[in-house]
C-alpha cells in the first residue's frame, strides 16, 4: 500500500512538473502583439472570437486587443507603431499609402459589408438627405467611405449636399445619436440597424447591395513584416485557423 501511495505521489509530481514546464515554455515563447479594433461591432467580432477561443495563445502570441475609434484613427496608430495589426478600410490604406505610408492588406474576412444607412422616418429618398447630418464612426473610416460612395452613386454630392459627423466608434453610439436627434441618419452595421429599426427608424439603403466591398481588411505595415515576419505570420495563422473553425 505504501509502495502504491509513493508511486501515485511520484506520478502526480511528475505530471505537475511537466505541466509547469510546458506552461513556462508557452509563457516564455509568447510574443507580444498589439491588435487594433477600429470599432466594437460584429464586423470585428472575429478578433474577439480568437481571443476568447485562445487561438492567439495557440500560435504563441500574447495579444493585447486595443479599441480605437474608426479606421482613420486606427491607421494613424498603425503608422506610428502603436499597433502591429488592425483591420483598416481599404480606401484609408490607399489614401495613406499615396501620402507615403507603408501599409499592406494581408487578407479580408468577409465578401461584403453588413451595413445600412438608417434614417429618420420622414427621410424617404436619397434626395431627402440634402442638408442633413449623417453620423459616421470617424472621418476616413469605412462608414465615411460607404456613405460618400453610395451618396455619390445616388446622385448626391457628398461634399456639398450632406454633412458627415463623427458620432462614435460603436454602432450603439451612432444609433443613440440618431435617437437624440444629433444626426438625421447614421451608418451602422448589425445589431445597430436592428436596434434602430426597433426604435422606429427606417433603412434608406443596404450598403451591401450598393457596393461590392470585401470587408474587414487585416492590415499591417511593410516595415513590421520586414522587422518581425514570424510575429505577423503567427497572427495570420491564428486568423486563418479561426476562419477554418468559424
Amino acid at each position, binding site marked *: 500500500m505504501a509502495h502504491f501511495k509513493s508511486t501515485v505521489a511520484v506520478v502526480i509530481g511528475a505530471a505537475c512538473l511537466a505541466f509547469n514546464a510546458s506552461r513556462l515554455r508557452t509563457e516564455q515563447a509568447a510574443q507580444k502583439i498589439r491588435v487594433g479594433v477600429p470599432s466594437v461591432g*460584429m464586423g470585428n467580432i472575429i478578433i474577439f472570437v480568437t481571443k476568447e477561443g485562445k487561438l492567439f495563445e495557440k500560435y504563441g502570441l500574447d495579444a493585447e486587443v486595443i479599441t480605437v475609434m474608426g479606421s482613420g484613427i486606427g491607421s494613424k496608430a498603425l503608422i506610428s507603431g502603436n499597433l502591429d495589426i488592425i483591420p483598416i478600410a481599404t480606401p484609408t490604406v490607399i489614401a495613406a499609402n499615396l501620402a507615403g505610408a507603408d501599409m499592406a492588406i494581408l487578407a479580408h474576412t*468577409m*465578401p461584403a459589408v453588413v451595413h445600412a444607412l438608417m434614417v429618420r422616418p420622414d427621410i424617404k429618398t436619397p434626395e431627402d438627405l440634402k442638408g442633413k447630418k449623417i453620423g459616421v464612426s470617424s472621418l476616413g473610416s469605412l462608414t465615411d467611405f460607404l456613405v460618400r460612395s453610395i451618396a455619390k452613386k445616388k446622385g448626391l454630392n457628398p461634399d456639398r449636399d450632406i454633412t458627415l459627423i463623427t458620432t462614435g466608434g460603436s454602432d450603439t453610439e451612432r444609433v443613440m445619436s440618431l435617437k437624440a436627434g444629433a444626426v438625421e441618419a447614421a451608418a451602422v452595421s*448589425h*445589431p445597430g440597424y436592428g436596434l434602430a429599426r426597433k426604435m422606429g427608424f427606417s433603412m434608406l439603403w443596404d450598403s451591401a447591395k450598393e457596393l461590392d466591398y*470585401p470587408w474587414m481588411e487585416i492590415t499591417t505595415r511593410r516595415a513590421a513584416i520586414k522587422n518581425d515576419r514570424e510575429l505577423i505570420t503567427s497572427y495570420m495563422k491564428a486568423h486563418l485557423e*479561426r476562419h477554418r473553425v*468559424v
Partner: protein
Amino acid sequence: MFKTNRDFGIKVIKKTLRVTDDELVNESYDIFSKMFHSNALSQSSGDEDKLRVRRDDAQRRLGSQAGRVYRSQLS
C-alpha cells in the same frame, strides 16, 4: 467555435457588444455566421470597385498624379 458552436458565438457577441436583446443577438449571429467564409481571400471584382471609387476621389483632390497610380493598380 463561432460557426460550429452557436452558444459560444452568442456568448462572445453578448460579452463584446454588451447587447442583452436576445432577438438582436440571434439575428446578428445568423447574419454573420453565414458571412464568414473559409478562405481569407478577397474577390478581385470587389477590390477593383474600391480602387475605382478611390481613384475618382484622389483624382479630384490630387490631380493627374493620383490617376496614374490608380491606373497602374487597376491594369
